[in-house]
């Protein structure tokens, strides 16, 4: 673990898939800067990719002229990534994560993004408001033991 860094980063970008890789790399770099192992930073990056892609695909229904804001907060305790948008909100109570044994047995496709987010982050919360938000948190101390 490096010396603890703290700070905030905000990136606003259009609701187009061509921007997703760029913000995914911002999240990856922020996680590395926050002292997470490279493998954990990779998980944070994938969770960010999935969350931002969900906003483009489902909240904005692929409309390319909308805005998405990614806010990253590094504190002594955690790394928090918040994805803000004004499209159709996702509500905590409407989330149904797939059972993977059944999923694989039935050869289903799609619907794995939310599961990856849940598995790769420590906390995930969806807020509905003037701006809707997907908030994802990774705790720094839980990472001391290694790759979590």
């Amino acid at each position, binding site marked *: 673990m490096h010396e603890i860094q703290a700070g905030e980063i905000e990136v606003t970008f259009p609701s187009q*898939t*061509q921007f*997703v*890789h760029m913000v*995914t790399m911002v999240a990856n770099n922020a996680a590395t800067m926050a002292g997470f192992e*490279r*493998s954990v930073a*990779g*998980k944070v*990056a*994938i969770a960010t*990719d*999935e969350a931002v*892609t969900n906003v*483009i*695909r489902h909240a904005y229904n692929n409309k390319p002229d909308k805005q998405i804001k990614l806010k990253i907060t590094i504190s002594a305790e955690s790394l928090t990534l918040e994805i803000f948008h004004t499209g159709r909100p996702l509500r905590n109570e409407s989330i149904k994560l797939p059972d*993977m*044994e059944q999923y*694989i047995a039935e*050869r*289903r*496709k*799609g*619907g*794995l*993004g939310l*599961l*990856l987010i849940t*598995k*790769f982050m420590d906390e995930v919360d969806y807020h509905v408001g003037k701006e809707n938000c997907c908030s994802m948190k990774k705790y720094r101390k839980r990472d001391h033991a290694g790759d979590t």
Partner: protein
Amino acid sequence: MSELQVQSADKQLVHILYPQGFINAHTVQDFERSIQAAIDQQKYRILINCQSLSYINSSGLGVLMGVIEEIQEQSGYLWLSNMNETVYHIFDTLGFTHLFKVFPSEDEAIRASESCAEDES
């Protein structure tokens, strides 16, 4: 240079794909085209060498799920090798390593394919 390039090669009985870059919602169609091209040529023994693949998201996994049934119906397989840690975590976390066999290296996958061919003969 595009964000995803997929080269291919035939080695022994195996059709190998070499994705270079990342597979996300923006690049997934290129990935899908490359797998579909192999299937269209009736190449059902496919290995994806992930040496130069930085990550794959759920869109890419959807492509694999979309073709696995047809490949298995043709007595083929869809294997993967040379995964980096991030790519392996994605497959492992979702239990996909049970459905898609993963090899540390391309050579090991090719040796396994030869054993499969011997078993069949």
